[in-house]
């Protein structure tokens, strides 16, 4: 039909928009700017890929269709077959010589925890020699780890399952803030806590989870986003809801009541405990979109403290990497920017899934980490809608009229707009053993998106 348009979306010459407005027809004016340098041809190739639109629709639907439930807690040796000398870490693959301080520190602590060495400092020689030790990204084992993300065989892990397919993802248990292994600390108090987690917390959580209805982690995320958590730097409501769901089974577990009390106190006093459930829930959802030919959707963003890497639905398991950036934020105590290590951790899986920095509007307190304001928080979430494929109907932001969170980062949209994903993060000390020095906001290195786009374009041309 040739009915009269009720509105026009104008991109380009303002004069043409004016000519429409002169005819009393509303015009939405696009604030167009040239794309990232050198991406024009690849953008056109990918846009013209006949697979792209439906591939992205499938990727988004697959991701949104996943409900993650907590079904078990068990040691990594049992769950992942991790053996002595095998270490998982956050981010893309990396060798010891390129590792940052906090990742080295966490590995040293992990070696001591596993009894490979008595003194963490002695582990350096072993790692340098490479004899009988190996490193592998958590992501390569269906797992995620916050900050250094080091997982050793004796560490207990949450098991999340997608009931529809039986797929599972895993994440270690959260140690709390301050001097903790994931921030690269390995002092005796760190190791003592990890041993308690291994001997008391893990077994008790296993009994509690096995003795409870499976916990609907995706559902808790829905609720916590309405309660001021963005599920990356703020997990307070989620942690307390988890405690609510697991406490009865802990109390009736038959385990020592002092241990139960200590466990309840530990979880209740650790606002970030739920982060280690939010992360594998996000990974479980995003993994459903992996391997969809032609899709430009990011399925993982992860950092190892040296490199920032992304994986994309349409490019298989390839990592596109660039240098991890320093966060902009606030520092604990006497620490300052010179003490901070570049961005580290698999926790950007939350932003990849549309929460964390992407849901900043629902957690305005977080924006103060960079001295921002509430309007900044609203603007950040709105800005992320410019680079995402859709909205999450389950995860909504009340203050934005319950608009769904911006979901499915589109490599093309990032290259077109130059808008980089906004990530909320903790900051680890640059030197091994220091621990947390602050928290703030960070973005990926811009160049990894044109790299991923170039590969997508190459694959598109190969199919044509």
């Amino acid at each position, binding site marked *: *039909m*040739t*009915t*009269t*348009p*009720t*509105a*026009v*979306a*104008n*991109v*380009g*010459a303002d*004069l*043409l928009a004016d*000519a*429409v407005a*002169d*005819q009393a*027809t*509303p015009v*939405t*004016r*696009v*604030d*167009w*700017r*040239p*794309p990232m340098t050198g991406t*024009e041809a690849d953008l*056109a190739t990918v*846009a*013209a890929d*006949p697979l792209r*639109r439906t591939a992205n629709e499938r990727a988004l639907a697959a991701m949104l269709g996943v409900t993650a439930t907590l079904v078990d807690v068990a040691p990594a040796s049992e769950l992942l077959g991790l053996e002595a000398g095998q270490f998982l870490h956050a981010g893309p693959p990396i060798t010891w010589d390129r590792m940052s301080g906090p990742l080295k520190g966490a590995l040293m602590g992990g070696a001591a925890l596993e009894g490979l060495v008595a003194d963490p400092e002695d582990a350096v020689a072993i790692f340098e020699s490479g004899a009988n030790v190996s490193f592998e990204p958590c992501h390569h084992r269906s797992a995620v780890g916050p900050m250094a993300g080091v997982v050793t065989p004796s560490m207990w892990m949450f098991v999340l399952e997608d009931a529809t397919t039986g797929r599972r993802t895993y994440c270690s248990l959260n140690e709390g*803030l*301050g001097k903790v292994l994931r921030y690269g600390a390995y002092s005796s108090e760190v190791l003592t806590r990890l041993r308690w987690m291994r001997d008391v917390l893990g077994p008790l959580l296993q009994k509690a989870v096995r003795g409870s209805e499976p916990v609907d982690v995706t559902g808790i995320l829905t609720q916590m986003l309405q309660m001021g958590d963005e599920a990356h730097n703020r997990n307070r409501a989620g942690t307390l809801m988890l405690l609510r769901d697991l406490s009865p089974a802990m109390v009736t577990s038959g385990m020592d009541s002092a241990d139960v009390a200590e466990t309840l106190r530990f979880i209740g006093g650790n606002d970030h405990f739920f982060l280690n459930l939010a992360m594998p829930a996000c990974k479980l959802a995003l993994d459903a979109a992996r391997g969809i030919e032609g899709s430009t959707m990011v399925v993982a963003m992860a950092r190892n403290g040296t490199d920032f890497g992304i994986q994309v639905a349409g490019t298989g398991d390839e990592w596109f990497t660039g240098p991890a950036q320093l966060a902009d934020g*606030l*520092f*604990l*105590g*006497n620490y300052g920017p010179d003490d901070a290590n570049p961005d580290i951790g698999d926790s950007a899986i939350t932003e990849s899934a549309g929460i964390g920095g992407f849901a900043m509007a629902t957690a305005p*307190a*977080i924006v*103060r*980490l960079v001295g921002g*304001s*509430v*309007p*900044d928080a*609203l*603007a950040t979430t*709105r*800005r992320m*809608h*410019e680079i995402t494929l859709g909205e999450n109907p389950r995860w909504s932001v009340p203050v934005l009229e319950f608009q769904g969170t911006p979901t499915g980062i589109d490599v*093309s*949209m990032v290259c*077109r707009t130059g808008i980089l994903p906004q990530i909320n993060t903790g900051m680890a000390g640059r030197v091994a053993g220091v621990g947390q020095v602050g*928290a703030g906001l960070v973005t990926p290195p811009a160049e990894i998106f044109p790299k991923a786009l170039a590969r997508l374009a190459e694959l598109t041309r190969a199919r044509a």
Partner: protein
Amino acid sequence: MNTPPSLTHVELRAGAYADSVTLLQVSRTVQGLDGVLAAQVAMATALNIEVLTEMGFEVPAEATTNDMVVAIRLAEPDALASALAGVDQALRDATRRVDGPTEVAPPRTTSSALRRTPDAVALVSVPGANALVEAMDAVDAGRDVMVFSDNVPVEQEVALKRAAAERGVLVMGPDCGTAVVGGLGLGFANVVAPGPVGIVAASGTGCQQLLALLDHAGVGVSSALGVGGRDLSSEVRGASTREAMRRLDEDPAVDLIVVISKPPAADVATEIEAYAASLATPVEFALLGAGRPDLTAAAESVLRRLGRDVPAWPVEGTAAAPSGGTALRGLFVGGTLQSEAKLIAADALGADAGHTFIDFGDDAYTAGRAHPMIDPSLRLEHLARAAADPETAVVLLDVVLGHGAEADPTALLAPAIAAVDKPVVVAVVGTEGDPQGRARQVRTLAEAGAEVYLSNAGATRRAIELLGGTK
């Protein structure tokens, strides 16, 4: 001996509370104050007490998690009062209401714009290398799109139109200057009354000439859908022409579909004619080129097919008598108008007779500058040059009115024409409803000494006649 005044200040504020993020910010502010070496304002949690202890502060044992600790190390003791005032100010500032901008930022892509206005038609005029990407957003969203941009590679046009065909989307362009969609003008478009004619146009100014002539004859146009100059090529194969014809066929207001284009590639012509024959609405092909009817003749046959009278096309003013020179100088803003004039002149005078016909809308003249319908300066410069050239016998110009074009094109052109002492013939393509008002523009030009036509073909023939040619 007196003990020296303390350089370290630690105080507990019972019942005071602020969240940890606010307190981090307050601490940072206080650390930056003159005379302060270190400062930490925090709730007295176990972790914070540990941090404070490491910083060398002694936190009183009675501190509970409900107390706020203010710990400051000073460069000199006198700084305490100002430091504490700074703490209070920072605490107040951290909780003050910020009146920042809450306005929603404009969309950065066509995709985002169409999510905000799902009913919108997209209008794309970004540089050609970027046009496919924006236009594809509209196709993805299932919305019609006009691509004003030129320099779009033909393989991108093919891909765009293939995707559009799957989605039932109409792509007008690339390099589409003019469209009227259900009465709404997009790009350079004339204001016409609704009526029985539906136009499919591969040419912008050709479409505008037809709109203007039909308007003068009292025949309205329901829609004029541009398709881009390459649509009927053997690469693109009439993808948009077909969709545009289908739309117009479904429009009950349209009694006759008119297709304006250069002659299609031979194999495409067969397909398009077969498609036209399958429609319920009759289709008139106005195919432009050597040995074919000009735009005015096409308009006349449309009128006859509708059973309307063909009016006398208006002429106003009188050109000066020729005063030497041998060359016809055609200076155009409309590409189709230029090629029409060139064809008519070649037919009458021979192809290589020293006459010039310049299209200032051609890529060679628009690189890095606006279209001559918007920015007349380049043509005005050439007009002055032609006037001063003793070889010039007659000057032939076009003026195109309508939405998108210069607000008052004769304001600069009329004085320039008045300064020319040779005959000047002008085709003013437009309607009385156009924002510039055709009658007023024509009068100004006639008063400046030009002879003004509505028909570009008519203007061209008059220029040839003034040249003393054979017709």
